[in-house]
């Protein structure tokens, strides 16, 4: 902060810095995302099973090679899944796209 900032602060007109509670909330949000990464093996297993079930409805996947993990990133946490596809199921043909003679 420059001289004017110091003066502004001195005169109680500190408009430069945002309200400190906004900073507190944002810091808390980030810290809790990281803290809450500590989820149980059990929860990760059931997430994995649910993913297999849902994706399995659309394509054949390699269940044993499937990898799911939480990864720390600068701005939070990402759920990263690597799911090898073995085969795609033939989609039922949408009748509306069949050209009429």
């Amino acid at each position, binding site marked *: 902060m420059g001289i004017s900032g110091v003066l502004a602060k001195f005169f109680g007109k500190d408009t430069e810095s945002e*309200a*400190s*509670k*906004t900073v*507190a*909330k944002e*810091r*808390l*949000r980030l*810290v*809790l995302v990281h*803290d*809450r990464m500590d989820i*149980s093996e059990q929860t990760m297993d059931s997430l994995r099973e649910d993913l297999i079930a849902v994706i399995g409805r659309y394509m054949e996947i390699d269940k044993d090679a499937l990898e799911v993990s939480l990864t720390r990133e600068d701005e939070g946490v990402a759920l990263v899944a690597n799911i090898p596809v073995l085969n795609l199921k033939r989609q039922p043909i949408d009748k509306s796209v069949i050209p009429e003679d």
Partner: protein
Amino acid sequence: MGKVIVVTSGKGGVGKTTTTANIGTALAMMGQKVVMVDTDIGLRNLDVVLGLENRIVYDIVDAVRGNCRLKQALIKDKRLENMFLLPAAQTKDKTAVTSDQMVELCDKLKDEFDFVIIDCPAGIEHGFKNAIAGAEEAIVVTTPEVSAVRDADRIIGLLEAAEIRAPKLIINRIRVNMVKTGDMMSVEDILDILAVELLGIVPDDDAIVISTNRGEPTVLDSNSRPGEAFRNIARRICGEAVPLMSLDEKRGFFGKIKSLFAGD
């Protein structure tokens, strides 16, 4: 058959012991038969907050080890005849009581009392695990600070893992002026982050320091603002629907003037 409620926070110094003492006293003032259990072995303090430190003969370790009968270790309050304290041991090790012993102790106490309020030590180790072992419900105390809210979040996770569902939150030491200027997180901000049920809010007030100095829980003082907050909390614990107290500055100011004239 009584209820066993543990008062916990993770972080130290947020007001667990003060909360325990005031909720216990307020419940006793409502006619409930109450026992408060200090599980902070080696660092006992609930006795001094309640002003009962001179009456201790036996403690929780004596009671669970059978050095005395449970009844002998219970200290009867000097003001309220239906209020008791089971003090922690001061000279023994943290590991002097096991979780199984705590469960057994709580079972015995809830046969005799309407409310068993357990004051939990700070931290998440042995003492915490013991304190929650025999509890059915939990009150989590926090203050509007990043560190306290973070620890509250961790504790809520640990309570749920221990199958103590739906812990209730008390936000302690709220400073209305700072909330208004945006320099303190508000009740809504904290509830947003923690997503738990709110049991009550307690304003930051000099009355707490004074009551702790004297060993007189602030709920005994009818002019005390935090006293009113804790009395409201006790009524909610008994199932009454009590609206949150207004933290408006004017009321606080006049309240202080009023208590000045009342000679407090």
